[in-house]
């Protein structure tokens, strides 16, 4: 019944349980993310979760396959066995919290509030129960909601009602129309199209009378190559087209070609416009399916 599961674990760092009580110096992602990375847990960027600027928040995404083992999709309350990913998660959080207790953090933030691992474990004791409850009512509520200790059947019912209302709102036609608008042209960060779309979305939000619609400007470092090419010189000569075919069914595919799509370009490749060609002398190409292999 369930095609996919997602499990992210959010931790927000606040002095008190109120956004008015944020630490003046954000602690997330400066040195903590790599701690999680060492445990093979990816973290999600969630800074600015309060207003786009303030907010100190980290989402941990441990491997799920081993977490959901034992959870059934039917209504029976099958016992949940927590596997390796949970212990990984605990280690990860422990690393995070240990880094919090680093002296520098308290000095920077001018506070004296030692956080100890034991607080964390007390917190985690709560986790399995809330997970169980959430998964138990997943079919009815279809949401796993972790908020303080207030997750209860009445809350689940209220949440379900609200979601049903939201789910009734969008129509397939409308979804198609929005999708068409957003995907008509590539709109990487800092492109004209990106700004057009931002204006468009802000306009629609204001039209819908959402409060305080503001477009905020960010001066971000961004590399945009002037051109990209990929060539194989031996054993046969081949130049990749880096181009997609056009189709009558989607007229936007016939729009004038934009620069070839890229995933990421290192800064030095764009900051040295004088070098005519950056050529890597590569002895061999290696193909790998699932794991890195060398030829």
């Amino acid at each position, binding site marked *: 019944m369930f095609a996919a599961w997602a499990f992210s674990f959010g931790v927000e760092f606040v002095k008190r349980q109120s956004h008015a009580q944020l630490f003046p110096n*954000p*602690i*997330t*992602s*400066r040195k903590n*993310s*790599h701690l*999680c*990375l060492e445990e093979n847990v*990816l973290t999600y*960027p*969630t*800074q600015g979760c309060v207003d*786009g600027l303030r907010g100190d928040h980290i989402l941990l995404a441990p491997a799920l396959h081993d977490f959901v083992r034992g959870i059934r999709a039917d209504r029976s309350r099958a016992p949940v066995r927590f596997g390796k990913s949970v212990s990984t998660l605990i280690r990860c959080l422990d690393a995070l919290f240990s880094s919090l207790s680093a002296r520098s953090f308290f000095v920077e933030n001018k506070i004296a509030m030692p956080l100890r691992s034991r607080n964390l474990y007390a917190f985690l004791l709560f986790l399995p129960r809330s997970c169980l409850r959430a998964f138990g009512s997943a079919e009815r509520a279809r949401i796993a909601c972790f908020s303080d200790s207030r997750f209860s059947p009445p809350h689940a019912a209220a949440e379900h009602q609200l979601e049903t209302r939201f789910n009734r709102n969008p129509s397939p036609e409308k979804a198609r129309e929005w999708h068409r608008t957003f995907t008509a042209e590539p709109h990487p960060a800092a492109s004209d199209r990106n700004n057009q779309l931002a204006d468009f979305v802000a306009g629609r939000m204001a039209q819908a009378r959402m409060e305080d619609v503001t477009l*905020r*400007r*960010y*001066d*971000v*470092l961004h590399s945009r190559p*002037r051109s990209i*090419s*990929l*060539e*194989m*010189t*031996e*054993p*046969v000569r*081949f130049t990749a*087209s*880096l*181009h*997609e*075919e056009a*189709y009558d*069914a989607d007229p936007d595919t016939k729009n004038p070609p934009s620069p070839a*799509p*890229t*995933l*990421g*370009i*290192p*800064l030095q*490749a764009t900051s040295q416009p*004088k070098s*005519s*060609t950056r*050529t*890597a002398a590569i*002895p*061999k*190409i*290696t*193909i*790998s399916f*699932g794991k*890195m*292999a060398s*030829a």
Partner: protein
Amino acid sequence: MKGKIALVRYSNPYSYRGFKALTAEREGAVALLIYSDPAEDGYTKGKVFPDGPWGPESHIQRGAITYDYIVPGDPTTPGWASVPGARHIAPEDARSLPKIPALPLSWRDAKPLLENMNGPEARGIGRALCPSRIASPAP
């Protein structure tokens, strides 16, 4: 992997391309090519666009390889917002700046590369050395 170009699939089930990029970088690869394999989202799965929902041979999956699991957003403002006037650290000190280029490929563009490769896990097509070149000409 040292000094080589890594050619990898997007992979299904999903695994974040940005983590592939960091892995390739850590393993010493000089560039990363990620291609869409028909076995994952193309004709092997069913009818391709416009006759069906799956990707045609020339489709290119776009995205970013941001190392946002290390530093979200601007790599030179770790932990604070890149608003006008914000302090920026030197690019050399930025942990999340990619060191190697990464490029998405369609199956149509990846096929000739695969057909001309050797290596232990290539698809049984043994050939001699296969030098490749990543070029970005100046304006």
